[in-house]
């Protein structure tokens, strides 16, 4: 069967069971958009290529399947670089297809030419420049394999326009032949036994759980391990939902804005059982002072993570889905009554939890409206498996702190790269992936202004997401740092509460817009938002400008220097 390169690409995507592409056409990718008309694959026309990338990420986050985005060459390719970098940091499987100028024009500074494979080399797991249409099925097959296996990540296929038009004889490769790519899946049995021994002797162990557990789909296995041993769990920003927050063993989020108990449990721990986490600087604070008494078991599918920041006592390379059950089995063999061994540790953690809960103070008069109160009300009024998507900044930290994540893959955010503007397009992608679930984007006013145009996409494509803007009229996190560390010298952080008018803007984009100024209006507004399911809703919550995210470990300090709340800040 003879196909054009463009037809072969679409057919290859169908073979990979792609159900949706987020994209925006243009010159160099034009040939591919023609056979797309005859395909079963749904295409969602975004308003900016960065949105296509983040939407594909949101889709991948909640479905576990690779997100697919397709854009043209040059500026379109550079616009999607942010999403690639974001997905690379957070290990999100993404397949991005970019058009490229014709092969004879490559290197001549042709119209809309950019060195896409060169530019994206450091933000993709791998990328391909196709030079002949016969390569297309093989490259697509390889691309999906690389994106979804081992440590997942984004890949990019650059397709020159003339290759799209070239004829090729259709085939579908039976298997992938990548001699240099063989991820290790099974953990070393000796190392797993060593780990089990360390755990059986530990008195203050903590399961330090990262996003890798979600990527591996190993949440049930984690629950079994934690419950069998009675070991407390901290879930990093990327791992919120990997272990249920309402499980008594869950200590919540550690790190710079983690709660006191989660942070301090690691500081006092004698054994960190690190599962799919990577000792990010936002978790460790000053590394030299991080978890000083702890031995470290580190399990990761990426060998380069072991010993990158902290040398593990027991390194295990492998797929958590396989390693965690093995570890549980080995621990069971040792027949140690860990639960009673850990009783004093749990009791100590409980006193901290009681003494240092997360807190805020909503004035009963209703004003100023506290952002944490908004999040709590949103949660109380939403189904328990609601998907929450956030941007980056204060609202992200409050969302992570005050939502209760009891289901895996219900928290979508930009952790590693910290990409402002992630929420709206990612929420759109998440809703496309899980149309059966309620999707709330909790966004900041700064973030919202970066990518709000994707609400036009949401309206046009009938993707009824809900957006809660925690509008404090500032680039809030930067303002917080300027207040705390720059003597309240506020430099370029003011955004204004009503410029733009978020309600009018929402309405102009075909959404329902609602404004909330006071705590007494919150419930009615959320009720209204919840009742709308045929279009997106935006609520502009005018929140307290002065509210800061606490606890906080100041940058460069060790986690022992955690500042619990504003009162303590004043004392210092």
């Amino acid at each position, binding site marked *: 069967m003879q196909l054009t390169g463009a037809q072969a690409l679409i057919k290859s995507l169908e073979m990979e069971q792609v159900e949706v592409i987020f994209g925006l056409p243009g010159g160099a990718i034009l040939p591919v958009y023609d056979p797309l008309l005859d395909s079963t694959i749904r295409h969602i026309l975004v308003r900016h290529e960065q949105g296509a990338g983040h939407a594909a990420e949101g889709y991948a986050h909640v479905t576990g399947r690779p997100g697919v985005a397709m854009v043209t060459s040059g500026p379109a390719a550079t616009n999607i670089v942010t999403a690639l970098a974001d997905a690379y940091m957070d290990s999100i499987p993404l397949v991005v297809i970019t058009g490229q100028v014709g092969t004879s024009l490559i290197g001549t500074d042709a119209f809309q030419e950019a060195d896409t494979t*060169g530019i994206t080399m450091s933000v993709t*797991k791998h990328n391909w*420049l196709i030079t002949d249409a016969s390569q297309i099925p093989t490259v697509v097959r390889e691309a999906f394999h690389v994106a979804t296996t081992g440590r997942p990540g984004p890949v990019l296929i650059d397709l020159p326009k003339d290759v799209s038009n070239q004829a090729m004889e259709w085939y579908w490769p039976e298997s992938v032949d990548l001699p*240099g*790519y063989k991820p290790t899946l099974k953990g070393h049995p000796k190392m797993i036994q060593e780990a089990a021994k360390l755990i059986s002797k530990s008195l203050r162990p903590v399961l330090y759980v990262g996003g890798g557990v979600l990527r591996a789909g190993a949440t049930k296995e984690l629950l079994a391990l934690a419950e069998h041993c009675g070991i407390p769990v901290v879930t990093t920003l990327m791992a919120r939902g990997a272990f249920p927050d309402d499980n008594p063993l869950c200590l919540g989020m550690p790190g710079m804005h983690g709660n006191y108990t989660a942070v301090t449990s690691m500081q006092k721990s004698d054994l960190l059982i690190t599962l799919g986490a990577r000792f990010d600087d936002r978790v460790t604070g000053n590394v030299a002072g991080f978890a000083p008494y702890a031995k470290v078991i580190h399990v990761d*599918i*990426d*060998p*380069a993570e072991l010993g990158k920041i902290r040398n593990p006592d027991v390194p295990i390379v492998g797929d958590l889905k396989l390693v965690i059950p093995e570890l549980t089995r080995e621990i069971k063999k040792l027949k140690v009554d860990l639960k009673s061994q850990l009783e004093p540790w749990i009791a100590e953690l409980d006193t901290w939890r009681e003494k240092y809960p997360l807190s805020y103070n909503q004035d009963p008069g209703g004003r100023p409206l506290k952002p944490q109160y908004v999040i709590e009300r949103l949660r109380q009024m939403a189904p328990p498996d609601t998907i929450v998507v956030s941007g980056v900044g204060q609202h992200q930290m409050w969302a992570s702190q005050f939502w209760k994540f009891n289901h895996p893959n219900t928290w979508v955010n930009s952790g590693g790269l910290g990409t402002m503007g992630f929420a709206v397009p990612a929420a759109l992608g998440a809703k496309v992936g899980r149309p059966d679930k309620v999707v709330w984007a909790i966004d900041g006013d700064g973030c919202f202004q970066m990518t709000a145009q994707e609400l036009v996409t949401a309206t046009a494509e009938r993707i009824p997401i809900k957006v809660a803007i925690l509008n404090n009229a500032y680039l809030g996190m930067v303002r917080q740092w300027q207040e705390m560390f720059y003597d309240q010298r506020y430099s370029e952080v003011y955004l204004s509460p009503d410029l733009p008018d978020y309600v009018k803007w929402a309405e102009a984009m075909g959404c329902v817009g609602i404004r909330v100024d006071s705590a007494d209006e919150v419930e009615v507004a959320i009720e209204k938002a919840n009742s709308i399911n045929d279009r997106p809703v935006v609520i502009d919550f005018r929140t307290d400008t002065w509210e800061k995210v606490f606890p906080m470990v100041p940058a460069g300090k060790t986690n022992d220097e955690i500042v619990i709340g504003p009162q303590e800040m004043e004392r210092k």
Partner: protein
Amino acid sequence: MTFSSSVVPMGGNRTNLEAKHHVLSVLVENKSGVLARIAQLFSRRGYNIYSLSVAPTEDERFSRVTIVVDVESAPLEQITKQLHKLINVLKISEINAAQAVEYELLMGSISTSSETRSELIELVRIFDGKIVDVGFDKLTVMLAGSPKMLDDFEALLGAYPIVEIQRTGRVALQKLDRSAPTRARSKSGKAS
């Protein structure tokens, strides 16, 4: 990457080379952009390349990249693990200088006068080098040998007006086991 290429720092201090540097022999797929991926990885992760040479192997599907890395810039283990993550990298062997055959090539154009010409030719002979080009008042000399030998030769050439000196960076192969056949052990850590 179907051509040979090499990068060597100009006139750097070559003393203590063995203590600070490690030689990695990296077998890669002979595909376009592989050298860029390796160079980019080193730059992105803040590792220093001291010298690098690339050429196709006996099997045209593969190339061998010999990289001399500055291990003070990062632990060697982290460098090899990150290299292994490149999809086109098949095998990485760390070559221990004591158990390797290492060669490098130097070419230099030297200005000569009637007094110094024969002296220079004599020096080249002593080192078992070659005169590969002759000009009216210049000679181009060539020497292949161990990096240490090239260091010595280069130092002695310093006595003459040097027009240009070019070194290739080293290539290395593991010394052969005399008792039984063996292969260079690849470093642990697969791509993921």
